[in-house]
């Protein structure tokens, strides 16, 4: 009995101690952490895009434009057509991005909030002076995501793009963001490149960066106001251009559309696209829709120990449009023939891109250095130091195979 009592007393003491500790630690946690992180949602200016240009006055290194969303106007969109613009923009100059951001507080009533930033827009002239200094902040600052995509403006300033209103999406930067996605998914002249991918390219292998580019079609001066989106067609719209090629972070050139898609093939970014072919036996064109593609790199060594890049492309597609007579899609031979033609066309595109990058620009934006580093590290050890000089002479073999799996829901073409 007394033992029981003793145990009960001990239990009670232990419990008391435990409870005390709990309360103490809970109190400490509140005191220690405080509520430093409290941000009111309605006191935030949500920045959706950052635009960087060169300082027009030339006094400072750069000019930052931010596109800040106006939530009340985004919501008003659904209720009635009359409302302000969905976003606004602020511009500030500075030597660095962060400096410019903080300087901007003299213009914004709300604290800028970068966690939902979706895009980094770099003006063409700024891109020519180098993009890597701009990426550091995004990589370093925990507030900004590293999976925001990067785009180059072509023939204009980033500021102008961020001041453009759009029709399809109330928030302009969403439209630009989606344009890249849709284009990449269905046609493939451009593909999105994220900040973290830019960083990754900088690693071993000396791969040079490529970025999609965008321009404004129409009257840039009219693009700023809501009137732009209240007319059909709008006075100015953003239009995706082609991929831009960089050497050591400095813009060198824009590819031609065909080369640009060739680059997408080589980067394995093509999900679906169309290949235009001349009809085998007659005048007219037919279209093969690529439904699936796979690309494999294999690095071989020739007798001298020089690397040969073997590019193996496999395409699955189907005929979707025939604008010429006498194409008998029920005949397997015809399908095979079209398959071969598709392969040739794609191979041609790819070769053109390789030619441009390797022989003309001498920029390894293809990641071949990386492939050699991964597959033949010994060869890379020898060549790597002098890769810029070696790259143009690297041989490549391209093999392309197409499997045509269908011809749509119609047999014979109506064209006779």
């Amino acid at each position, binding site marked *: 009995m007394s033992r029981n009592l003793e145990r009960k007393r001990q239990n009670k003491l232990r419990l008391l101690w435990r409870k005390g500790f*709990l309360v103490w630690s809970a109190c400490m946690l509140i005191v220690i*952490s405080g509520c430093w992180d409290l*941000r009111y949602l309605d006191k935030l200016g*949500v920045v959706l895009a950052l635009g960087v240009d060169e300082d027009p006055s030339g006094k400072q290194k750069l000019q930052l434009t931010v596109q800040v*969303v106006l939530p009340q106007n985004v*919501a008003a969109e659904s209720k009635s057509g009359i409302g302000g613009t969905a976003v606004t923009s602020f511009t500030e100059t500075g030597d660095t991005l962060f400096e410019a951001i903080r300087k901007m507080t003299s213009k914004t009533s709300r604290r800028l909030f970068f966690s939902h930033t979706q895009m980094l827009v770099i003006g063409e002239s700024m891109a020519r002076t180098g993009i890597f200094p701009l990426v550091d902040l995004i990589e370093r600052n925990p*507030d900004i995501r590293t999976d925001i995509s990067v785009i180059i403006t072509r023939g204009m300033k980033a500021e102008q793009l961020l001041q453009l209103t759009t029709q399809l999406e109330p928030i302009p930067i969403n439209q630009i963001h989606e344009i890249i996605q849709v284009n990449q998914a269905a046609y493939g002249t451009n593909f999105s490149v994220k900040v973290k991918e830019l960083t990754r390219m900088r690693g071993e292998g000396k791969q040079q960066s490529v970025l999609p580019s965008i321009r404004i079609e129409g009257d840039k001066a009219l693009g700023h106001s809501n009137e732009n989106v209240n007319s059909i067609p709008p006075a100015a719209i953003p239009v995706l251009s082609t991929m831009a090629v960089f050497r050591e972070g400095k813009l060198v050139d824009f590819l031609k559309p065909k080369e640009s898609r060739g680059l997408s093939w080589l980067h394995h970014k093509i999900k679906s696209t169309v290949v235009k072919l001349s009809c085998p036996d007659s005048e007219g064109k037919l279209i093969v829709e690529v439904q699936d593609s796979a690309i494999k790199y294999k690095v071989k060594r020739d007798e001298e120990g020089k690397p040969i890049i073997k590019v193996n492309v496999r395409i699955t597609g189907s005929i979707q449009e025939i604008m010429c007579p006498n194409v008998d899609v029920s005949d397997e031979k015809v399908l095979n023939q079209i398959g071969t033609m598709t392969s040739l066309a794609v191979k041609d595109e790819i070769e053109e891109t390789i030619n441009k990058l390797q022989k003309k620009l001498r920029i390894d934006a293809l990641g071949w250095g990386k492939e050699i580093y991964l597959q033949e590290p010994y060869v890379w050890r020898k060549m790597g130091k002098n890769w810029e000089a070696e790259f143009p002479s690297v041989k490549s073999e391209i093999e392309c195979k197409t499997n045509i799996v269908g011809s749509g829901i119609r047999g014979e073409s109506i064209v006779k």
Partner: protein
Amino acid sequence: MFGPGSQGNSKAGKKAMKSSPRAEKHEKEQLDPYENKPLSLTISENMESIKKELGESQDIIFRELTLVDRNQTKALIVYVQGMVDDERLDEFIIQPLHRERFPLDEPVEPKELLAVIKANILSTGIVTDICDWKLLFQKLFMGYGILFVEGSDQAVGANVIGGARRGIEEPKTEMAIRGPREGFTESIRTNTSLLRRKIRSPKLWMEQWTIGEISQTPVSIMYVKGLADENVLKDLRERLESIRIDGILESGYIEELIADQKWSPFPTILSNERPDAVAGNLLEGRVAILVDGTPFVLVVPAILNMFFQASEDYYQRFDIATFLRMLRFVSFLIALLMPSVYVAIVSYHQEMIPTQLLLKLAAQREGVPFPAYLEAFIMEFVFEILREAVVRMPSAAGNTISIVGGLVIGQSVVEAGIVSPAVVIVVSFTAIASFVSPTYSLGIAARLLRFILLLAASTLGFYGIGLVVLLLLLHLSNIRSFGMPYIKPFAPFYLNDMKDTLVRAPLWLMRKRPQKLGNQNMVRQDIEPEVRKEPEQ
């Protein structure tokens, strides 16, 4: 007769009792004199002392009559009006005494006469000898008719319990689409019979106490001998016997007085209105506590998992039952966490929500005067007020409340821009989710904890929520109900018991009873008959 002023004293004692245990003891002494206090030999004296003791209460009926024996002996029937069934009293006690000719021609001793009456004349099922005042009052207020015979210091109590009580109705708190429609009633006898009808086994045992110094409430425990854990039974008996209170008006008194955890929002005793649910628990080796005067039967030991089980789970197909189980767990989490998660997200972790949603929320927050956490507090509080109002108000006022509550609070507040619509959505969704819980007591726990979590979320964000949830888990794993860990099949982990937790396994897979519940007989389904082994003691 029982000492001067005993009446006044008992009243004073009742007042004092609530204030201190010493007064309670005092009261006990006051009640004790009835014990072993002999009855008087004469009817008139007995009648006088009853009248005196009961303060001449008008509902105590004294019926004097003359017996049809040789001596024309005088007799007295005492009963409480409204607690006896008048027809049965007439038919089985008064009429026989009037009409039946006594088999004895010789005049007999009054004591013997009483025995004869008891054996031959009274035709009710239960007849009790009464020798002292304690038993007399007990039986009198249970609804017995008490018969005195002149010259005998004994009385006979005949069971004619009756009077108006609520009949068996469908349980109000635990509805079921499929399953028995009957629910417990306020009468403990009806309730025990309802259980007996579910488990017709000689192993269904019952023990009874009278608890409440003044209320004298019958309290029974029922269990299946051989399945129930003897340790739990022993513990339960001790706890019930140690209760010293003036009255037990509802099983909630017992629940609070015998619960393991005095300071926990989580219920460690299950209260249930459905006989089938209680019977199911008895078959799993648990013990039911029935209290007269309430349809809520307690079940011990109760673990957290039981509060998510509805009896209907076992009447439906296992797949749909499993789905519903999971739904309940998820709803509980929503009821617990949703407002706090909302507050944490909009005031601390804006980067966590998709941009489009953020913009919608931000647009709603535009121009709202209060910070998000205050908004959530206000709305939660308003909801609790509404809920309480709806529970307590007369049902005629229902429409008013729903109009005022729905229109004024739901719509006008948003339109006036005082509260953002998102908060209203969150609070209403939380409210709906909190009603999913099949047991009311757990829902209440979630209600309280919600506010604590809200506080943590508004000061520390997700970190605070994590902290409180961690503390809750610690607390939960610390609770025991009659020796059983509260979150049992999860921690400590019993694989076999997991079949009836987040999922409800098919009945043909649940071959064993939950562990650690009187391990005597684990097998639920086997070739052998149900209950067969005596527990080792």
